[in-house]
């Protein structure tokens, strides 16, 4: 039964909400990259500090969006089932461990990385739990958000000054994982036969631009790894990974977020006499 599509773009989460996913993803990814770098022998407290700054910036974006910002503390009340609460609960220990890594002992970065990974996972699950938006409520969105955040974090690490060869490898691998996750995500959306409006964004000019950015990022990182202008290309590849990740999340949150619409599975038959509503049996 064909019917006029009723799906429409959601207006509750705008670019400020996308900011939380973008900056939060980059920040948590950067803390993870810093932990990885330390494991490779490169101490980078600056990366932890910048990562925490990004996370704080993302949360500030959300704070600007909520209707009752002065009762924001209520966000902590529902850890039993709400991934938003769980994300918020991870922030204090993440900030504390990160601050300890910067100010006391860089080895606290391993603890901060654990919380950062949890923070990143909560963000992905927040989208998955949004059952009103098919583009988010797609199980492949979890690896997509995680891989994108990792690619952003490793990319940001390269941009901000730490460019050990191994981190270029990490950024490249994370970028490849992001591309695989994106292909799987798109396939999942198509297989789920979502409303055309949800799928349309993939062919939009913005998405084509972002695909080009991501491809360019991978090419730069691969060339840097091969030894061609490694510093310049690592910075270029890293910054493109960050920008492409932010763009991808902005598109998913703001542009692809169509509702399910009102759908009826059967057409009513009219003119068959009164029902029991009017004439009780």
């Amino acid at each position, binding site marked *: *039964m*064909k*019917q*006029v599509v*009723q799906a*429409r773009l*959601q207006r*509750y*989460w705008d670019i400020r*909400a996308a900011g939380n996913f973008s900056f939060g993803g980059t920040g948590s990814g950067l803390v993870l990259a810093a932990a990885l770098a330390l494991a490779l022998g490169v101490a980078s407290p600056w990366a932890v500090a910048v990562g925490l700054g990004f996370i704080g910036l993302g949360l500030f974006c*959300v704070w600007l*969006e*909520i*209707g*009752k*910002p002065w*009762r*924001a503390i*209520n*966000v*902590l*009340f*529902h850890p039993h*089932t*709400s*991934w*938003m*609460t769980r994300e*918020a609960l991870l922030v204090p220990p993440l900030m504390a461990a990160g601050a300890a890594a910067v100010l006391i002992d860089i080895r606290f970065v391993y603890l901060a990385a654990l919380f950062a990974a949890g923070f990143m996972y909560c963000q992905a699950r*927040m989208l998955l*739990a*949004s*059952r*009103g*938006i098919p583009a*988010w409520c797609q199980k492949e969105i979890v690896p997509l958000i995680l891989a994108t955040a990792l690619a952003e974090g490793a990319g940001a690490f390269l941009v901000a000054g730490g460019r050990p060869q191994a981190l270029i490898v990490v950024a490249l691998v994370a970028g490849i994982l992001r591309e695989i996750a994106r292909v799987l995500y798109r396939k999942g959306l198509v297989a789920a036969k979502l409303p055309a409006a949800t799928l349309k964004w993939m062919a939009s000019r913005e998405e084509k631009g972002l695909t080009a950015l991501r491809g360019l990022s991978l090419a730069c990182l691969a060339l840097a790894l091969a030894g061609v202008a490694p510093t310049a290309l690592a910075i270029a590849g890293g910054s493109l990974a960050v920008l492409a990740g932010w763009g991808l999340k902005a598109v998913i949150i703001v542009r692809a*977020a169509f*509702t*399910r*619409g*009102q*759908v*009826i*599975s*059967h*057409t*009513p*038959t*009219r003119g*068959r006499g009164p*029902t*029991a*509503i*009017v004439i*009780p*049996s």
Partner: protein
Amino acid sequence: MTRYAMVADLRRCVGCQACTASCKEANGTPPGVQWRRVVDIEVGEYPDVKRVFVPTGCQHCADPPCMHVCPSTATRQRADGIVTIDYDLCIGCGYCAVACPYEARYKVDTASFAFGDEPSACEEVRHDPKKIGVATKCTFCVDRIDAGRAKGLVPGVDPDATPVCVNTCISGALAFGDIEDPDSNVSRLVRENKSFRMHEEVGTSPGFYYLWDKETP
């Protein structure tokens, strides 16, 4: 156990929007906010095309995703199945609105009125500043239900204990009652007619049934 549910007979709804108007009057919802709305859907392909009027709103799901995602516990579910919002707890994050498969939730950040900057006499009475900046939705007129039950009335049978949209429906398309009671009007309607619930594949077990055909005798 009691579980209140609504039944909309799609064979009878004429799309008059009386339910929408009565809901707006009773709850003082601002312009653009329709807790009870009637969607006009076109189905079929030319030349066999039909218009179907579909009353919709909060489905008071048995497994409400809005409640699960709510970070503040503002959204709760009563023992009788009615999903409520505590306006004093809600932070207005909008997470429930994107989690709802039925587009039943609204959030307005500034007060607005139907006829300019000042509220009309009716709006002045109904305006509640607590509803600004927080999520709102259909409550199944829970205050009427509670007040009616306190007087010994039966929701869905006695108008004073029944949601106003049901009372107002001109064609008898809307019915309300306890779906767990096999003798209630809604149980009987669902049992004696063919029905479906919207977006059942999402797994929310909505408390809103649509009648579309009668069983062949």
